[in-house]
């Protein structure tokens, strides 16, 4: 260390702030408290609840690659779908154990992510975006054509899942599904949280902020991006696997532009690159969809489109961004 040495000020506040940034803050327990409370407060909505957890995990995986690494993708549903089909097909073919099925879903999706990432992350901008879209369409075609194993346009049916750990049976009130999905979400969240606060995660932010600079400080940029993309794909695959196991059905539109768009919108609603945007955006979207879309899907699509445009124009940081602004105003008034 020829140019610098240990600072004279051993515990400089700036250093402390940086090193302590990852510490858990009490408010971060709020989503989990709400999830547990909801089980007792809304016993009739447990199916919706588990779907929400699944989408939060899905959106979280997208946030890793989009919010943190800055790679815009319209193809993330591909990995979700691959995971769903993997878990579903395993069950249909005779492997009914849920947890190993879920792990398999994640691994297969991660492999697809790795291979496609190696190929398409050589490009950037519109070309990259287009390639992510192409992958979704390709895999959708593949799933459609391989009807003998995927069920094609009719979807994959007959997915039977064994009780978890041999004791917790999947019941028709979705109680087991609720806790199963919540537990998996918790693990996924813990992992992503660890990741984004690690040097790896910070380097992703660096790549997003200024890739030229990252190259110039010796970062193996493409390797980091492919790694992040693979992890993100694996997590999306786990979310998809959860869907297959809890709903016991996989529809073809699980690999679609529409789903990629939906999860993107959820993330934008909540706030991109904030870790918790997924936790706000997914529930808001899912609940709104549950209420409004069933009545009139055309109406729903129109308003989603409009809200998306309004967010881009006026509220780029999503709901978390708006909260930030509000807090900022409050602090200023206090001074």
């Amino acid at each position, binding site marked *: *260390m*020829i*140019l*610098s*040495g*240990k*600072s*004279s*000020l051993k515990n*400089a*506040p*700036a*250093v402390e*702030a*940086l*090193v302590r940034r*990852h510490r858990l803050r009490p408010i971060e327990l709020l989503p989990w408290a709400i999830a547990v409370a909801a089980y007792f407060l809304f016993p009739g909505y447990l199916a919706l609840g588990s779907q929400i957890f699944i989408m939060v995990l899905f959106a979280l995986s997208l946030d890793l690659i989009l919010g943190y690494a800055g790679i815009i993708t319209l193809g993330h549903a591909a990995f979700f779908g691959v995971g769903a089909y993997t878990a579903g097909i395993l069950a249909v073919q005779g492997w009914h154990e849920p947890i190993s099925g879920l792990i398999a879903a994640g691994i297969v999706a991660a492999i697809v992510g790795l291979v496609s990432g190696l190929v398409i992350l050589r490009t950037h901008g519109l070309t990259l975006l287009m390639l992510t879209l192409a992958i979704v369409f390709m895999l959708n075609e593949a799933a459609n054509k391989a009807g003998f194993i995927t069920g094609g346009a009719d979807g994959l049916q007959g997915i039977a899942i064994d009780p978890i750990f041999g004791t917790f049976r999947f019941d028709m009130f979705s109680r087991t599904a609720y806790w199963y999905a919540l537990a998996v979400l918790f693990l996924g969240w813990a992992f992503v949280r*660890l*990741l984004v*606060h*690690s*040097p*790896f*995660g*910070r*380097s992703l*932010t*660096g790549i997003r*902020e*200024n890739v*030229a*600079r*990252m*190259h*110039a*400080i*010796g*970062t*193996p*940029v493409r*390797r*980091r991006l492919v*790694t992040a993309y693979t992890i993100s794909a694996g997590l999306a695959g786990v979310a998809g696997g959860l869907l297959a196991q809890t709903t016991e059905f996989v529809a073809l539109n699980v690999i679609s532009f529409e789903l990629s768009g939906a999860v993107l919108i959820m993330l934008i609603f909540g706030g991109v690159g904030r870790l918790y945007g997924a936790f706000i955006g997914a529930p808001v979207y899912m609940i709104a969809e549950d209420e409004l879309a069933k009545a009139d899907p055309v109406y729903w699509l129109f308003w989603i489109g409009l809200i998306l445009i309004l967010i881009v124009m006026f509220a780029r940081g999503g709901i978390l961004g708006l909260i930030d602004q509000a807090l900022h105003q409050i602090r200023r008034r206090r001074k």
Partner: protein
Amino acid sequence: MTAVLETRGLNKSFGALQVAQDIDFRLEAGARHALIGPNGAGKTTFVNLITGRLRPSSGQILLSGEDVTHLPQEARVKRGLGRTFQINQLFKGLSVLENVALAVAERDGVGGDMLRVAGARRAVAEEAYALLERLRIADDALKPVRELPYGRQRLVEIAIALGLNPKVLLLDEPAAGVPSTESAIILELIEELPPDIAVLIIEHDMDLVFRFARRITVLVQGAVLVEGTPGEIAADARVREVYLGERGHV
């Protein structure tokens, strides 16, 4: 003695436009070398070729005797190459401390760590902070870079390059457009750089060049016009001719 940095017959053209012509260049350990020339002479292009941002059309680049011509940027950085950009390339949304910490972390090889190694992180942060203190920007450590005035941003740019502990440091117009307080800090820093680092500065400010450089290379239209000691360069008629319409900094 092996040069820490050497180029042999370096050429680069964009179609019919040749921006680097047959450049032979050597930098020894501990060098204090300036690269001067009129605007558009290809000085930044030369640096981009050395760092790997641009691929040469032909020629070789060697770092401590090793041929790095086909290695990517990051591999050259790992072999001791550090640079600042003519226009600041910073992480505008991140704090000043974090900007430098990223560089230190990469240098230490922990940039890709996914599991927090708490001790290493503190060490990285402390070293980054020490650098900020040396450049007298420690007070701004937690501020997002975009909130800093240009001069202080330039100091962050230099701190990042220093954080890499380079063996070869390429400074592209480090003091350009910087107010006097900060440029004084920069000049002082350059003078205090460890003697074993090789430093190449691109500069237009002749006072700085003659104060700092022990050798000067003059680049005109992508080719080396002449190379020598400051005395030789000052006396060279061709150099004066080239600069006749270009007194001082445009």
